[in-house]
């Protein structure tokens, strides 16, 4: 018998379950099909501006910095201002995300834009969030041809653009969005929930920002 069959057989024996028990199979199929939501905290049940405000508040609590702009066209200038404010070289890495590509990057002079997968020497990466979660101040980005995953982890500074219309109150609403966007039971290769900059408390439980991932996460919220 294969290891697989041995383990499954052991599990069945321990549970006192027969292989072809239809009631058990139905229970499992129903749970997978219906995906019940469980307890969703009331905290995120907000609309419009109140929801965006909670998102900003929670993101700042997680040590992200947040800047709000009115429209997508303002993003390149906001990025340039961030770089200047921190004395960073005028260079960013970004993927080919169409929402980012549609922004007027030519309006900021001398900004060098690297395309494709991130490089260990990149200081600043720019991503566009697929969604935000107000409950915890989290952004969600995912892999794909236009979204190299390394941009989230390799640069020292990670700038994430979030459209306020993509901010949901809670994680369950974001899961529903993923299901609608990718199809039930289907996922992008990598789906990353990011809540603030990387950190470690491994030395004497002293919390330090900037472990192996970015030292700073800057969110630019549109709208």
């Amino acid at each position, binding site marked *: 018998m294969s*290891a697989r069959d041995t383990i499954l057989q052991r*599990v069945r024996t321990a549970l006192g379950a027969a292989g072809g028990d239809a009631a058990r199979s139905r229970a499992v199929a129903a749970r*997978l099909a219906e995906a019940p939501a469980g307890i969703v905290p009331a905290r995120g049940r907000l609309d419009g501006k109140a929801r965006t405000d909670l998102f900003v508040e929670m993101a700042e609590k997680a040590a992200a910095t947040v800047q709000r702009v009115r429209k997508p066209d303002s993003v390149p200038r906001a990025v340039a201002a961030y770089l200047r404010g921190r004395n960073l070289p005028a260079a960013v890495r970004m993927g080919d995300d169409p929402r980012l590509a549609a922004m007027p990057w030519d309006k900021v002079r001398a900004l060098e834009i690297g395309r494709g997968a991130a490089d260990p020497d990149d200081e600043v990466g720019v991503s566009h969030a697929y969604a935000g979660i107000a409950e915890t101040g989290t952004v969600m980005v995912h892999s794909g041809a236009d979204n190299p995953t390394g941009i989230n982890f390799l640069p020292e500074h990670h700038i994430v653009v979030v459209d306020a219309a993509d901010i949901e109150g809670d994680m369950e609403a974001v899961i529903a969005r993923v299901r609608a966007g990718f199809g039930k039971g289907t996922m992008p290769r990598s789906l990353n929930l990011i809540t603030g900059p990387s950190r470690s408390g491994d030395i*004497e439980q002293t919390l330090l920002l900037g472990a192996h*991932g970015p030292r700073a996460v800057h969110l630019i919220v549109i709208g």
Partner: protein
Amino acid sequence: MDIRSPAFKQSARAALSDAQLQRALGNVRTGFIDKRRQAVDALPEFDALRDSAKAIKDHTLAHLDLYLEAYEAKATEAGGHVHWAETAEDARRIVLDICRAAGARTVTKGKSMITEEIDLNAFLEAEGIRPVETDLGEYIIQLRNEHPSHIIAPAVHLNKDQVESDFRRVHDHLPAARDLSEPAALLGEARRVLRSQYFAADVGITGANFLVAETGTSIIVTNEGNGDLTQLLPRVHVVVASIEKLVPTLEDASQILRVLARSATGQDMSVYTTFSTGPRRPGDPDGPEEYHVVLLDNGRSSMLGSEFQDMLRCIRCGACMNHCPVYHAVGGHAYGWVYPGPMGAVLTPSLIGVDKSGHLPNASTFCGRCEAVCPMRIPLPKMMRHWREREFERGLNPAAQRYGLGLWAFFARRPRLYRFATSLAVPALAAMARGRGAFRRLPLAGGWTRHRDLPAPESRTFMQQWRDRSAGGETAAARGPEGLA
């Protein structure tokens, strides 16, 4: 890793007189408890979420065979390779074969207790493959040739001057005059040293906090970002996960995530929660070309259907050890195997056998704090008691204890006699303590009083006081379990 659990008493004694260790353990007593409390207080639904999380795992465990099959089908559909391992040895073999096929010389590792459980590093090294731990705490203890002393804070037993001297010893290519006095300098140095390792590695190995049956996804939850670089940059990603990591759906993972970070570090959400499904897709600019999952049993299936099944709900948050007075006193290494604290005292005998785990089920004061804080509502004290019973049945405990318990049982089965005897003994003990409230030494109780005081009883027995209190309407039970914390 050698099993040193039967030496718990000696190890605990050594730990108590280790000044460095005692200083470091102060960080557990202060840091984790307050942070958890604040995060829990800020979420009114926390206890309801605990019930929900428990129900999810109970349902999953009751249908584990079916969820494993569903998970395997989805993971395979996404291009992943699912391997099944009955034992630690099988899992090591499978990982080695994957590494060999990839021509691996160096593997990076994200923090994972399961690879500690199967002692993967020593095995790979013996086979000529260099494992590099990338989590800061794991990296530090790997340099010291030690094992984690805590399941989420592996180097919590160390102080920063110890880390500094290890870095100076190992990173000898760096200038000797550099300043490493601050933790930030140590972290920066580890970051720079490890950066090159991620790119040099041929295989990246991580654990999983959850496996999602609905989508064939593995989830890791981290703060440092090392786990993500470990699984992103090498050509091959291997996930090692035990079979009880399954949850049915993304919503179920979300429920448990809400209690995990709060219970572990007091965060509302860890920095990185990463869902991985299969290898790099066509057109993807990065990501591993191969994605493997090793599903490990290693004793779990024999816990199913037993009085220890509840332990399989454990999500490895560490809250039980953070709140344990025994752990606070002796640290994690004294427990002598991979899993320390209350969860280790239950899990170790389940996984390696009660005969090899010595006194671990007795490494408890039965204060109940672990159960009060466990997000998965695992009845840890009750299960430690089960192990004590089994230990007793099999005659594994010392003769004096067996005799003492036998004597106690004689009285306990005769309640009137018991009450009469205690009504004599309690005032006598109270008088002997002469109002100091505690004994530093007591004849026949040296095992207890050597390292702690024995509180002296008040001059009336519990039963006598209970009758008075019940008459007055106040009962201890009214405070509820959190009142213990």
